[in-house]
């Protein structure tokens, strides 16, 4: 499984990329592999205000439906509209074209968010 050092990870297998007050979120390579072929991704409306650890959408694969959690609260700036037509981007490029949402955050909130480094996440997945 692939992890990237520049990203932070959650126990629910999301990754986030922090860039100032903007955060990009997606699911990890480990998660897409476990889910199998993804057939549908449901994402929130742009402009929605969300709380930390809230469900922001659903991912449907041929095997299961699972929820997308966001480890930090904020305002949804944009969602990846390409996933409507090509949900398989999450399988083929989970860290790139398969990104899900971008949101505006208060960087002070990051201190409270439960996040792992890529090394910690690797260990976490090995135990799972």
């Amino acid at each position, binding site marked *: 499984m692939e992890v990237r050092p520049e990203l932070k990870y959650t126990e629910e297998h999301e990754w986030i990329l922090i860039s100032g007050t903007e955060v990009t979120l997606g699911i990890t390579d480990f998660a897409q592999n476990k889910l199998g*072929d993804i057939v549908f991704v449901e994402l929130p409306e742009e402009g929605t205000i969300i709380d930390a650890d809230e469900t922001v959408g659903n991912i*449907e694969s*041929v*095997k*299961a439906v699972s929820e997308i959690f966001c480890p930090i609260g904020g305002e949804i700036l944009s969602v990846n509209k390409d996933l409507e037509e090509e949900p398989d981007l999450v399988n083929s490029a989970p860290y790139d074209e398969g990104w899900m949402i971008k949101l505006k955050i208060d960087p002070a909130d990051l201190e409270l968010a439960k996040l792992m480094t890529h090394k910690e996440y690797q260990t976490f997945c090995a135990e799972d």
Partner: protein
Amino acid sequence: MNPGKAGLVFHEPLLFELGGQNKRGVELPEMDLPIISDEELLGGNLRQSPNLPELSEPEVVRHFTRLSQWNYSLDGGFYPLGSCTMKYNPKMAEVAANLDGFAQAHPYAPHGSNQGLKRLLFELQNDLAEISGMDTVCLHPAAGSHGELLGLMLIRAYHNHRGDSARTQILIPDSAHGTNPSSASICHLDAITLPSGPDGLIDLNTLDQMMNEKIAGIMITNPNTCGLFEERIKEVCDLVHARGGLVYLDGANMNAMVGVTRPGDFGADVLHFNTHKTFATPHGGGGPGAGPVGVKAILEPFLPKPVLVERNGKVEWNNDRPRSIGKVRSFYGNVGVLIRAWTYIRSLGPKGLRQMTLNAVTNANYLKALLEDHFEVPFKQHRAMHEVLLTDKRQKENHVSTLDLAKGLIEAGYHPPTIYFPLVVEGAMLIEPTETESKETLDQFAQTLIELGKKGHDELAALPKTAAVGRVDEVLANRKPILRWEA
């Protein structure tokens, strides 16, 4: 040769593709009134013709008869669909339901009539209450899912009546029956997932932390969908009650409890039965079903009306129910199904029902014993109940998945087990043989599954070959579904 294999398999076109010009099944008499043209009658509201297929009667009959022959049923072969209890439907129940006095009964018959049917329903209510340890039972719900919804509505009515409207959430263990969260959502309750402990059972500490004054109750499936009996069920119910919540028991797995233990005794306040999963009525599949709901006395005032009562030796409906939530179904519920359930219960009797449960659990554990050296069995330390859970962990090393094994079983003439459910177990196969299967059937099925597990991915990926429909592209079908026929 395996029993379920289809003989003649045709490519069956759609009726739209079969239709010809000016063919018809019924010849209508010539019109003896002046004909008004469609345009004259409807003017600008006239829509384009729906272009329905034109076919003769035998063409239509053959089309649907051929399609029906593609059905796989318990009358044709082994159907070990875990979590769904596919029981053999005894033919005696069909005879009972077709007796004239039942089949011709009319719900608008005069007051005081239909006594035979009402007596049967009254007895069934009492039998179900005795079997489950509840105080009374409502037969109205038209399906298990309908029963779930009613049960949750009763829980809401109970809290509202106490003046407690803050309880808007319901706890649902991750090993619960799959319909529970949607029933909760339709009842405007937020479903909160309760994670199982490492042994696959409800963890009392986690429950303790999550049980607060917002929680209306808990929806428990017992045995749970991992096929395990919740050993701490009494403590779980006591804890929920102590914090003001109620306990809903999903009766999907009653086939492992009838005559052995009673939900009412271990703490359930409300439960539903799936008559098709426990009392051998035909599986609904969208057709008429029945999901009777049993309650403890605290919920009785809220039951839908009318309720059956016995007065002066006659069974009648009582509509005088001031705290009732109202009606959930017209007339008496799906009586045809309820007659079959009564017949099953009365033909087996108390000892027979207990034996049914013991045989169901024995059969599942026999399959577990045959398969556990060949497949990974999660939570192996617990005895299985009426279904056995396997995974594809060992076969995965050989690139063979649960899906491949399921397709291989179709080729071998079996209905596959439930796959990839419960979600908490990766690559799950949930196998439920039920009580009616013989040792020979179980031996043959286990042998088939073991042999499939030894095959390579390439060989299995080509299966099924001889079924009416071969291996379908599930990913494509989900990503780009074709939902409308176009010429």
